């Protein structure tokens, strides 16, 4: 049963309700899974996917059959790694080798792990991890290598952070650290996915030569999550906003959440949003390299959601109080716009860039840089989908004449003018001649022009009116 507040919301936002209905009625997946043909372990893997992922499970399940299973398993492997990293009940001495060697257990038949604390939400996945391993061993070796390589890099990155006592106490220190952290947890995923897309020939191989693009894809999503989840992370005693940023606005991280510091906290969030926003144009660039529709949808939906979330968080004091989310209606509209083509996704980015720009406050120290970042997104979109092209302006060139040409054009125009006059004269003369000719013939044939002219005299014209009236009266009398 929908909540009363939801009903009230959608009554006030019928456009959003329309988006929800449209998405649910009209969206059909590019590819569908054939569940009945899947073996038990694979079905278990998809069940875990549904259980562990809120946002990614739907898009993963609509992927091209070639990548469906590899990417589902890639997700579960990384989720498993994350579950180990997150769990504070595992002692470091045990955690570190687990993280560093996780890529090796992927092919160890029957491997599973029950060392997680009872409160860890994805504990079940690791307890029954042998299903993942079983399916992983069936994946094409090329894909397996990519997944293992990324798992190894990420596991080592996480182990480094787990070892770093300072990080555990104070959180992320510099912007560089912040970028590095996001690289380990998201940039690497971008790299891995890109390699899978290219290996399966569903994306342009040039993407591999521009690693900064896939890095930005991952960084953008991760940074938006970090901005949105600041309150939730604080409650879990984690800090991802780098000290280098927040220390410009407040002395202690916790001060960001005090009501009296609202203005400072908002300016601080602006800087975080600015850092993320500067990646947006590279995300669009990346999407231009994808060839397959299902892969495009898979990559584009989260990006559209991310920029919409960024807009929702921008200059919004609620992020320091609760979890801010975009509405279901907006989410459906974003999915409709992100499952067609790049031009529509660019439209989404431009729309949200302008909304951010509209909220931008001149008193915010990041005001100008945010404005420039929004402008940069618009300029990038213009560079791939230009709304103004030079050939359209070639017409102007033609209008520009040298003095000689101008004189010639003037003479031409003069000539054309007389041509028109002559032509008009000839037509008039012909009409006149024919009229006279016909009148003369009619006269010879006995036409009474004198009577006709007399009829046309004004006095006669007016006399007719009362006569007409009498006729009408007679008509009525007859009745």
């Amino acid at each position, binding site marked *: 049963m929908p909540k009363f507040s939801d009903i009230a919301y959608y009554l006030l936002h019928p456009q959003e309700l329309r988006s929800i209905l449209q998405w649910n009625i009209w969206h059909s997946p590019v590819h569908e899974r054939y569940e009945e043909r899947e073996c038990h372990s694979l079905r278990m893997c998809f069940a875990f996917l549904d259980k562990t992922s809120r946002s990614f499970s739907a898009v993963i399940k609509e992927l091209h059959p070639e990548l469906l299973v590899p990417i589902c398993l890639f997700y579960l492997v990384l989720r498993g790694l994350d579950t180990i990293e997150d769990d504070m009940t595992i002692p470091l001495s045990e955690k570190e080798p687990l993280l560093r060697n996780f890529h090796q257990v992927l092919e160890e038949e029957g491997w599973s792990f029950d060392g997680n604390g009872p409160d860890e939400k994805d504990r079940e996945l690791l307890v029954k991890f042998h299903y993942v391993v079983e399916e992983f061993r069936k994946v094409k070796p090329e894909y397996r290598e990519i997944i293992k390589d990324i798992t190894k890099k990420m596991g080592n990155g996480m182990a480094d952070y787990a070892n770093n006592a300072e990080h555990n106490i104070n959180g992320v220190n510099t912007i560089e650290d912040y970028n590095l952290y996001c690289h380990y947890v998201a940039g690497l995923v971008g790299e891995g996915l890109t390699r899978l897309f290219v290996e399966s020939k569903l994306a342009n191989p040039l993407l591999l030569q521009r690693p900064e693009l896939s890095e930005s894809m991952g960084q953008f999503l991760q940074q938006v999550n970090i901005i949105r989840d600041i309150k939730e992370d604080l409650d879990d005693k984690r800090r991802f906003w780098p000290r280098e940023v927040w220390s410009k606005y407040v002395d202690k991280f916790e001060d960001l959440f005090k009501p009296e510091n609202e203005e400072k906290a908002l300016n601080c969030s602006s800087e975080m949003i600015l850092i993320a926003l500067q990646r947006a144009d590279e995300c669009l660039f990346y999407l231009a390299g994808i060839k397959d529709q299902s892969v495009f949808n898979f990559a584009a939906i989260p990006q559209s959601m991310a920029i919409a979330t960024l807009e929702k968080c921008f200059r919004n004091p609620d992020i320091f109080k609760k979890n801010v989310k975009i509405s279901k209606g907006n989410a459906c509209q974003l999915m409709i716009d992100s499952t067609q083509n790049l031009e529509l996704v660019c439209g989404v980015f431009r729309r949200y860039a*302008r909304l951010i*720009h509209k909220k*931008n*406050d*001149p*008193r915010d120290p990041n*005001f*100008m*840089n945010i*404005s*420039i970042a*929004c*402008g*940069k997104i*618009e*300029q990038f979109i*213009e*560079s791939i989908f*230009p*709304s*103004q092209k*030079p050939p359209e*302006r*070639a017409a*102007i*060139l033609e*209008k*520009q004449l040298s003095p000689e040409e101008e004189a010639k054009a003037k003479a031409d125009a003069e000539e054309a003018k007389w041509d028109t006059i002559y032509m008009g004269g000839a037509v008039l003369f012909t009409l006149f001649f024919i009229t006279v000719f016909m009148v003369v013939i009619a006269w010879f044939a006995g036409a009474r022009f004198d009577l006709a002219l007399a009829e046309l005299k004004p006095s006669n014209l007016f006399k007719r009116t009362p006569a007409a009236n009498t006729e009408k009266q007679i008509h009525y009398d007859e009745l």
Partner: protein
Amino acid sequence: MSDLAFSNDSLGHVLITGGCGFLGHHIVNILLERHPSTRITVLDLRTNVNRNLSPKLRPDVVIHTASPHAFAAREVLWKVNVEGTKVLLEAAQKSGVKAFVHTSSASVIMDRSMKIINADERWPVVMGKEQPEYYTTTKPPTAPPTFLTTALRPAGIFGEGDGQTLPGMLNVLAQGKHTFQIGANDNLFDFTYVLNVAHAHILAANALLATASMAPTVPLDNERVDGEAFFITNDAPIYFWDFARTVWFYAGDRTPLSKVWVLPEEVMSTLGGVMEWVYGAVGKKPAMTRAQARYACMTRYFDISKAKRRLGYSPIVGLEEGIRRGWRRRWRREGGGREEGSVE
């Protein structure tokens, strides 16, 4: 700027016209800094030195920045920009100049639609009746001579010594008109900090000298600088009113957006028309003109990939730092300080 690597410390003998002007004096400064052994001659209305270009000068490089104010009388614009440039080119030809850098204007491609969206150098130059600003008609360079030439087209220059952009905006603030915004402010606009434009001139002079030194070998078509035009911007198109608001912020304004009145462009341009007509009847200039309304709502930004690729140009000072510097200089001057940077 000392970190910028320039191997040679001299560009030979450089003649800078308008070298005491807004852009010119920055070029002189940057030239002194980067190529300290360069012999510099400045030709300017405001100096008392010889105004005739003597063939005895024999410069290697001419940087031609001199131009009247964009709102000067038509005859003055024509005489200086077209005839003056022609005279200079002829004199340069006679005295064996190697490189000639001409300061053009980004408005040369502006037409009556008053819209430039991410334009690059493929856009044709617009002159005569189709060109809305007479100043611009006088700006494209004249017939190419035998030595190497290039034209730079900076867009919306501002900075220290600026007589138009920053003072114009500060005037609006002084009159309290900053609480009105004409148009929706979705129009992106290119503003360029003057030092970046000066930097581009030095890069262009260097590139032309390099081409001259490797003659008779000519550069590849996609690398050449001579005979080419380049748009120069800060590579940071920004929403027009956001730039103005940043300037006002540095001037001490703290008006929140909620206190700003947004006026639709159509209304303002009609109003401007009426004002022009009324004031015109009594022979005065109105506070609000159609041209101003149009300017504030104009989309006008450029793609400067060509300058990046061929000149190796990229802005060395960001927009906000540029505003800060421009503002600082103004403040110092008003406080009775001496204007820095001008050449004696």
